């Protein structure tokens, strides 16, 4: 692929991504007078729902298929520690450590 085509593709992706990112803040300002607490709450729930969906897919799936055992196990341990309100650093290190350790033992 010639590099001008590649640069153009990157710039179109960048422009589109930026449009997605700034649309929310712009529209929100337009409606700032009229946003009711109910709408505010729904929007916040929407963000949590999106993040939870990202957690589910990135923990369980890889390229549309199952992600194996090590990764879901690591995330599950991290989730359990988070539920027990263990400090954030330990949660992240434990999740990575469990997944890496299982792989070292040959678990996919």
């Amino acid at each position, binding site marked *: 692929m010639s590099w001008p085509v590649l640069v153009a593709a990157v710039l179109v992706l960048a422009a589109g991504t930026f449009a997605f990112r700034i649309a929310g803040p712009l529209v929100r300002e337009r409606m700032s007078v009229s946003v009711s607490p109910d709408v505010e709450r729904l929007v916040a729930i929407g963000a949590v729902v999106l993040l939870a969906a990202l957690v589910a897919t990135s923990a369980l799936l890889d390229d549309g298929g199952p992600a194996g055992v090590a*990764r879901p196990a690591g995330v599950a341990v991290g989730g359990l520690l988070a539920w027990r309100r263990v400090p954030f650093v330990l949660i992240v290190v434990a999740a990575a450590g469990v997944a890496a350790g299982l792989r070292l033992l040959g678990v996919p």
Partner: protein
Amino acid sequence: MRSIWRTIRSSPDLGRDIALVCAADALVGLSFGAITVGAGLPVWLPMLLSLVVFAGAAQFMFVGLIASGGNPVTAVAAGLLVNARHLPFGFTVGDLLGRGWRRVVGSHIMTDESVAFALAQPDHARRRAAYWAVGVGVFVCWNLGVLAGAFGGTVVTDTDRLGLDAAFPAVLLALVLPSLRDPATRRAAAAGAVITLVTTPFLPAGLPVLLALAGVLLALSGRRGGATSSPSSSAPESSEAAR
């Protein structure tokens, strides 16, 4: 901007958590740079993508499609679909950005991590500080990582061996968990996650995550059903009792 720094300084735990996520992102960036160049693509491509697109999942997808000989229109469309979730994210964090150049910069540094960190904070000042600190921190670390990976080559191409693929879902999970204590939010999130998982095999990447938003309807209907018993006031008490 000074108030953001002050807020972060006054809560060392938050600063440490943010630094950890930035370090993990730098390692993934390192692998992104190395993988892209290793696939025979020009050394400027990962760096340009990381500066102007700045969205990890979309960047990996774009590069994967280009490297396997896909046409650029498909690669752009796939990347845009993966990034469409930033639109609803923007509604949530829109009040943390300010106006003018701050809104432009603040929008560009919007990521899953910065949104999740902001949502997990108890008040507006800390939400704003967390959003900006994570956004700027990850932008700098991600780009430095990609730069090092593009030139340094294959030191860490397989971040799965370090378990980083498990660390990122765990980061987001830890950050959304407090929000899930609210029953309506928990129902919506569970429904959304199921919708996403079930539709993923049949739909292009990015779309299943957006469909999760249908889960919000469940939160709405649940609220309407229990409106007379005022679930928002009774719920915290029952969850306290359960603990």
